[in-house]
C-alpha cells in the first residue's frame, strides 16, 4: 500500500527537517551568546558616557569615541535616563547629545530594520523638539505598517507640540490591535490644541459610535466651556455608549453648569450610564445632588448601588448622614449597602 509508505516518508522528512532547523538554531544561539556579551559591554559604555555628562556641571567631559553615539542602543539607554531624572541634569544630557548630533542619528534610526530600535528612537525623539523631528516622525507615521509605532509617533508629535491631524488619529481606531487606550491619550492631547478639528470630525456624517465615543470622551480634556453644550446634547443620544462617553467627558471637564443635565442621567435606562452619571456628578456638583444619588442605593444593579454608596461616602458629613438614614431604612438591600459603606469608612463598628 503506497500511501502507507508515503506517510512514513512524510514523517521522516518532517522529523528530519525539524531536527535540522533546531540544529541551525542551536548553532546560531552559540554565536548570539558571544555577540550579546559584546552588546552588553557597548551598552555599559554608553550608560557610563551619559552618566558622566549628567554629572559634569562644567560641560568639560569629552567623549572620545564618537562612534559610541552611532549605536542603535543609544535611544533605549537614553530613555532609561529620562525615565529617572528631569530638571537641570536631563537638560544638560539632551544639550550635549544635540551638540554631538545624536538627534540626527535618532532620526536616522527611524529607518532601522529592527522594530524595537525604531520604536525606541521614535519615543526618544519626544525630547528633541523641532521641525526636523516633526518631519521625520510624520514620515514614519506615513510609511510604517506597525500600528503601535504609529501611535508612539503620534504621542511624540503631541509632546513636541506638533500635533497630528485629527483624521489621521481617528483612522487608527479602525485598525485592529491599535492600542485604543493609548490613542485616547493622544486625542486628549489634541483637545487643547486642535479642538476645532475634533469638533469638525464629530460633525462628520458616517462616523461610527465608537469614534464618537472616543471623541466625546477626549473633549473633557479641552477645558473649554464651549464643549459643554455638545457633551450635554450627546447625553440624549440613543446609544448608551455615547451617553456614557459624554459623561466621562463631563466628569473630566468638572464644570458645575453641567450638573443638572448629568443628574437627569441618574434615571437612565442603562446601568452603565447611571454609574457614569454618579461619577460625573462627584466631579462637577459637590454635594448638591446627594439625595438624588442616595436614591440609587436601591438600584437593581449592584455596581450602581456601589457607586452611589462610594459617592456619598466621599461627600463628607452630608453624605454620611444620608448613608446613616438609609442604613436605618426598611429596604433590606439599601440598608445593607449603606451600613457596609459606613462600616468601611470606619463608622458603625464592624458592620454586619
Amino acid at each position, binding site marked *: 500500500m503506497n500511501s502507507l509508505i508515503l506517510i512514513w516518508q512524510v514523517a521522516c522528512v518532517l522529523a528530519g527537517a525539524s531536527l535540522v532547523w533546531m540544529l541551525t538554531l*542551536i548553532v546560531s544561539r552559540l554565536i548570539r551568546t558571544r555577540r550579546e556579551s559584546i552588546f552588553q559591554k557597548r551598552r555599559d559604555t554608553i550608560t557610563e558616557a551619559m552618566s558622566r555628562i549628567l554629572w559634569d556641571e562644567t560641560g568639560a567631559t569629552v567623549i572620545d569615541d564618537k562612534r559610541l553615539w552611532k549605536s542603535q542602543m543609544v535611544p533605549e539607554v537614553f530613555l532609561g535616563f529620562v525615565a529617572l531624572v528631569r530638571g537641570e541634569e536631563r537638560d544638560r544630557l539632551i544639550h550635549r547629545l544635540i551638540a554631538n548630533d545624536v538627534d540626527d542619528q535618532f532620526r536616522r534610526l527611524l529607518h532601522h530594520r529592527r522594530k524595537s530600535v525604531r520604536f525606541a528612537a521614535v519615543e526618544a525623539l519626544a525630547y528633541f523638539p523641532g521641525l526636523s523631528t516633526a518631519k521625520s516622525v510624520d514620515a514614519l507615521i506615513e510609511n510604517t505598517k506597525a500600528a503601535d509605532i504609529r501611535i508612539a509617533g503620534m504621542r511624540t508629535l503631541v509632546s513636541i507640540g506638533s500635533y497630528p491631524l485629527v483624521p489621521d488619529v481617528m483612522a487608527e481606531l479602525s485598525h485592529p490591535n491599535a492600542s485604543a487606550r493609548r490613542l485616547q491619550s493622544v486625542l486628549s492631547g489634541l483637545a487643547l490644541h486642535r479642538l476645532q478639528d475634533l469638533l469638525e470630525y464629530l460633525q462628520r456624517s458616517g462616523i461610527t459610535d465608537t469614534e464618537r465615543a472616543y471623541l466625546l470622551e477626549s473633549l473633557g480634556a479641552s477645558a473649554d466651556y464651549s464643549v459643554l453644550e455638545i457633551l450635554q446634547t450627546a447625553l440624549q443620544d440613543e446609544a448608551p455608549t455615547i451617553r456614557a462617553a459624554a459623561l466621562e467627558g463631563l466628569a473630566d471637564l468638572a464644570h458645575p453648569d453641567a450638573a443638572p443635565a448629568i443628574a437627569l442621567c441618574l434615571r437612565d435606562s442603562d446601568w452603565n450610564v447611571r454609574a457614569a452619571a454618579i461619577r460625573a456628578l462627584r466631579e462637577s456638583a459637590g454635594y448638591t445632588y446627594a439625595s438624588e444619588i442616595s436614591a440609587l442605593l436601591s438600584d437593581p444593579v449592584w455596581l450602581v448601588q456601589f457607586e452611589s454608596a462610594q459617592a456619598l461616602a466621599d461627600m463628607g458629613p452630608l453624605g454620611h448622614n444620608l448613608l446613616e438614614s438609609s442604613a436605618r431604612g426598611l429596604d433590606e438591600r439599601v440598608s445593607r449597602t449603606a451600613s457596609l459603606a459606613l462600616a468601611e469608612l470606619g463608622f458603625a463598628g464592624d458592620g454586619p
Partner: protein
Amino acid sequence: MMDVILSVSKFVGIMVIVTGVVQYTNYFMQLVLAAIQLVSSGKAARSDALWRRYSDTVPPIAILVPAFNEEKTIVESLSSLMAMQYPNYEAIIINDGSSDGTLDVLIKAFGLKKTSRLYSPLAPHEPIKAIYRSPHQKRVIVIDKANGGKSDALNAGINVSRAPLFCCVDADSVLEPDALLRTVRPFMEDPERTVAVGGTVRIANGSIIRNGQILKVQLPKKLLPLLQTVEYLRAFLMTRLAWSQLNTVLIISGAFGLFRRDAVLQVGGYSLGTVGEDMELVVKLHRDLRERKQDYRIKFIPEPVCWTEAPETLEVLRHQRTRWQRGTLETFERHGKMAFNPRYGLVGVIGFGNILISDVIGPVVDAIGYILFPILAITGTLPLDYFLAYVAVTSGFGLAISVGSLALEEAQLRRVPKASDLALLTGICILENLGYRQLNSLWRIRGGLQYLQKSQSWGVMTRKGFTSY
C-alpha cells in the same frame, strides 16, 4: 477464518493510522498558525519599555489567590505579589477554610485588622467569615471564608474585588514581575472586545527560586519534569497561541489568567463542584457571549509570565493527568451542545472538534494501536508498510511537532537559558515519543473511565504543583 481476522485487524490498523494522521494534521496546522502569530507580533518588548508605554493608561487589576492550608508559603507568595511591576492593583488572598495557620501567619506578617467592605453577592460561594486588611498597606486584602473549594473561593474573591479586571493565580505560582503588564496588553489594544487573556505557564523545577521570585531560570534536572517542559512548550506556545488566532481558546490555566470581571459575573462566576473549573469558565464565557451575539476576544500571549512546580513522581503526575482528563470530559459533556453547532461558530467546530479528536477518540484509538500492532508483530502478520506508517504516526510526526515548537520558541522568544539546554530539550523531544506519550494516553483513558464511573473518591490532594488545591 485466519484470513477474516487478519483483514479485520488490518482494517482496524488502517483506522488507527488514519486517526493519527488526522491528529497530526491538526497539530501541524496549529504549528503554522502559531508561527504566523509569533512572527507577526514580533519580539516582545523589554519590561521597562512596557512600563514607559502603558503604565499611565492601564486599568486597575485585582489579583485573586485562593489558599488552602498554605501556611508555609503564603507570606512569601503574598510578599512577592506585592512587588509586581504594575501601577494599580490589589491582592486578595482567599483563605478557603484552611485547617492550618494560613490566616494567622498572614495576620501576623502583614499586621492585618478586621474590616468591613462593601461587596456584591453576585457569584455564589460559602459564607465569608471576615475580611481583613492591612491598615497601612491598603492593597492587601484577606478574605476568611468557610471551605468550599477553589471555584468557591475565587467567586468570593471576584465579589469582594472592585477592579474591572481580575487575575486568578495559584498560591504556588511564581509570577514574573512584569506578568500583569504583559498580560494586560490585549485589554489595552482592544478594550471593548477582550474578555479574557491567558499567559504562558512554564515549569519551575530546577530553577532557582528565592522569596517567591525566579532568580535564575534553569532546566529541571529530573527526567519527568523535563518531559513536561517540552509538553508545556507545545501546549502553550503552539496549541493555545494557534487557538488565540482563531478566537477559540478553550482553556486559560488556573495558574494564571486575566479576566474581565463583568463578563465573568455575567455567567455567574466559576461553576461550583467542577473538576476543571478553569476550562469550564472559559467555555462558559464563549457560550454566553456567542449566545448573546457579542463580538469578543479570548486571547493568549506567548511570553512566559508564570512558573509552576511540576509533579516529579509518576504517581502524582498520573493523578494530575487523570484529573485533567475528567475535567475536560466534564466540560465537554456540560457544554456538549456547542460541539459542531454553527451557532457557536469556530468554537464549536475547532475547539470542541479538537477535544473530540485528541481527548475523546484519540486515547482510545491509541490504546487499540498499542494492543493491536504488537500482536500483529509477534504473530508475524504485520506488513512492513503498516509497521512504518504506524511508527510514523506514533513517533515520527510527534517528534517533528515537538521539535518544531521548540524551534519556534528559540526563534522568537529565546527564553531557554543556554545552547546546551536547547540540545538537551531536543533530545527530550525524541525521548518523549518513546514511552511518555504512550503513558499519557493510558492516563487519559484512566481518567475517562473514572469519569464514566462518576467516581466521587477523587483521591487525596497531594501538596505538590497543580494537584494542590
